[in-house]
C-alpha cells in the first residue's frame, strides 16, 4: 500500500469525524441540516476512494446511494418537515457545548484505543476505517442523547448510520445487496420517523422530548 492512498483515506475519514463534531456544535436546525448534508458528501467521497483503492466497483454504487439519499433526499425532506412544523427559529442548548465536546473527544479516544487493539489482524486501512467508523457511530449516539429536539435526534440517528456505511466500506467483501438493503431500510425508517414527528407535534404541540417525560399514558 502506498503512503498516498493511506494519507488520502486518513484525510477523508478524519474529516468525517470532524464533521460529526461540527454536528454536535450546531445549535440551529437549518445549519444542522447543512452540516449533515456535508457529512454525507464527505462520506461518499471516502467510500469512492475506498472503491478506487480496493478496486471494488460496487462500492461506487454505495457512494452514489449515500450521495443521493443522505446528501439530497433526506436533508431536503427534513428541511420541509421543519418548515411545516414551524420550528426553524428554535435554538437549543442542552448540556452545553463544552461538556459535550469533551464527552465526544473521550468517545473518539475510546473507539481508537478499542479498535486498534481488537482488529490488530486486519490491514492498516481497514483498522483505521473501523476506528473512525466506531467514533462516528458513538458521536451519533451522543448526539441522540444530548439533544431534546426530535429532529436533531433524527439527524443523530442518520449520522450514526453514516458511520456504519464507512465501516462497511472499509471491511472488504461486504456484498452489495446488504448495503442496498441497509440504505433502503434507512429510508423506510426515515419515513416512519417523519410520520411520528407529525404525530408527536400534533399531540403535544412541540417536538421537544421533555414533553414526553411527563406524559403518563391515558391515565387522567
Amino acid at each position, binding site marked *: 500500500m502506498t*503512503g*498516498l492512498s*493511506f*494519507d*488520502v483515506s*486518513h*484525510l477523508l475519514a*478524519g*474529516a468525517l*469525524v*470532524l464533521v460529526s*463534531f461540527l454536528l454536535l*456544535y450546531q445549535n440551529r436546525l437549518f445549519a444542522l441540516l447543512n452540516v449533515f448534508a456535508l457529512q454525507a458528501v464527505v462520506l461518499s467521497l471516502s467510500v469512492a476512494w475506498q472503491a478506487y483503492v480496493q478496486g471494488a466497483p460496487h462500492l461506487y454504487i454505495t457512494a452514489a446511494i449515500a450521495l443521493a439519499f443522505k446528501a439530497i433526499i433526506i436533508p431536503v425532506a427534513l428541511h420541509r418537515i421543519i418548515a411545516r412544523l414551524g420550528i426553524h427559529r428554535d435554538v437549543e442548548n442542552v448540556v452545553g*457545548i*463544552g461538556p459535550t*465536546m469533551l464527552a*465526544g*473527544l473521550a468517545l*473518539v*479516544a475510546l473507539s*481508537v484505543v478499542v479498535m*486498534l487493539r481488537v482488529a490488530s489482524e486486519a490491514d*492498516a486501512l481497514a*483498522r*483505521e476505517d473501523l*476506528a*473512525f467508523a466506531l467514533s462516528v457511530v458513538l458521536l451519533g449516539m451522543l448526539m441522540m442523547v444530548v439533544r431534546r429536539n426530535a429532529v436533531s435526534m433524527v439527524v443523530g440517528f442518520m449520522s450514526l448510520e453514516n458511520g456504519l456505511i464507512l465501516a462497511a466500506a472499509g471491511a472488504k467483501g461486504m456484498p452489495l445487496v446488504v448495503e442496498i438493503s441497509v440504505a433502503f431500510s434507512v429510508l423506510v425508517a426515515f419515513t416512519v420517523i417523519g410520520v411520528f414527528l407529525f404525530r408527536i407535534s400534533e399531540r403535544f404541540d412541540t417536538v421537544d422530548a421533555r414533553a414526553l417525560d411527563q406524559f403518563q399514558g391515558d391515565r387522567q
Partner: protein
Amino acid sequence: MIDLAVNLVFQLLQMLLVIGLAPLLTGLVRKAKARLLRRQGPPLIQPYRDLARLARKEAVVAEGASWLFRIVPYLVFASTWVAAALIPTFATGLLFSWSADLIAIIALLGAARFFLALAGLDVGTSFGGLGSSREAMFATLAEPAMIVIVFSLALIAGSTQLSTVAAFMASSAVGLRVTLGMALIALIIVAVAENGRIPVDNPATHLELTMVHEAMILEYSGRHLAVIELASMLKLLLYISLIACVFTPWGLAIADASIRDRLLGAGIYVVKLGVAGLMLAVFETSIAKMRVFRVPDFLGAALMLGFLGALLLFVSRSLK
C-alpha cells in the same frame, strides 16, 4: 568566526525588521478594512505617526499606581520583542535559533499577558479589573489550545524547535495530513483571540462595554501607551509570522543559505505579511463581533480541533 558575525548581523536585522514592519502591518490592516467599507481610511504610515505623537506627550500616571504600573509596559514590550525575534521570519539558523522553541515563545507571551493583567488590576479602576478578568478567562482556553497544537506539530516534525519544524514542513516528507489542517485552523482561531481581532474583541473601539484589551490599558498614556501599542502591533506580526513560518515555509532561507537567498527570503516574507494582512481585513469585515460569553465556545472549538488532530495523528502513527 565570520559565520558568527554574519549570523549576528542577520539576527539584528531581523529584530529591526519585525519592529519596523509591525506598525506598517497594522496600518495596512486598518487601511484595507476602511477601503472595504468604502471609506478613505488613514494613510499607511499613520501608526508610526501615532506612536511618535504618544512618545512626545507627557505620561500621566494615576494616583495610587505602584511601581509595577510603570515598568509593565517595558516588560510586556521586551518579552514580546524577544518572542518575535525568535521566530524565523525570513531565514532559519540565525544566532538565536537554538532557543527558538515554540514552548519558550508561548511562555514569553504568557508572561507578557500576566504582567498586563496585573497592571490592569493595579490602579483599581473597574474597567481595568474587568479587562483583566476577561483576558484571564480567554487565556485559560487559548493557552491549552496553543499547547495542544504545538504538541501535534512537534509529533509530526519531531521537534519543538521552530527552525527544525520549518525545515521539515518545507521538505517533501510532510505528505497529506488532516492533523495539519486542523492545527492550522486552531492556530488561526487562537491568533484571532490573542490579538483581540474582531469576532472576539474590537481593536478599533474604546469605551465599549465589551472591550477586553483596551479596558486593561485604559489608564496608560504618553510613552507608556506608545510602548504597549507597539507591543500589541508586534504581537499581531508575531502570530502571522508564526503561521507563515510553520504552514507556508516556502521562500524561507534554510540555514547556511547565501546572503542573496536571505535577502530574497526577506522580500518574500514582506509579501506574505501583506497577503496575510489583507486576508485578516477581509475576514474582519465579513463577520460580526460575538458576545463575550460566546468566546469560550469559539476558543473551545480550537481546543477541540487541537485534541482531535492529536488523536488522529496517534491513529496514523500507530498504523504506519
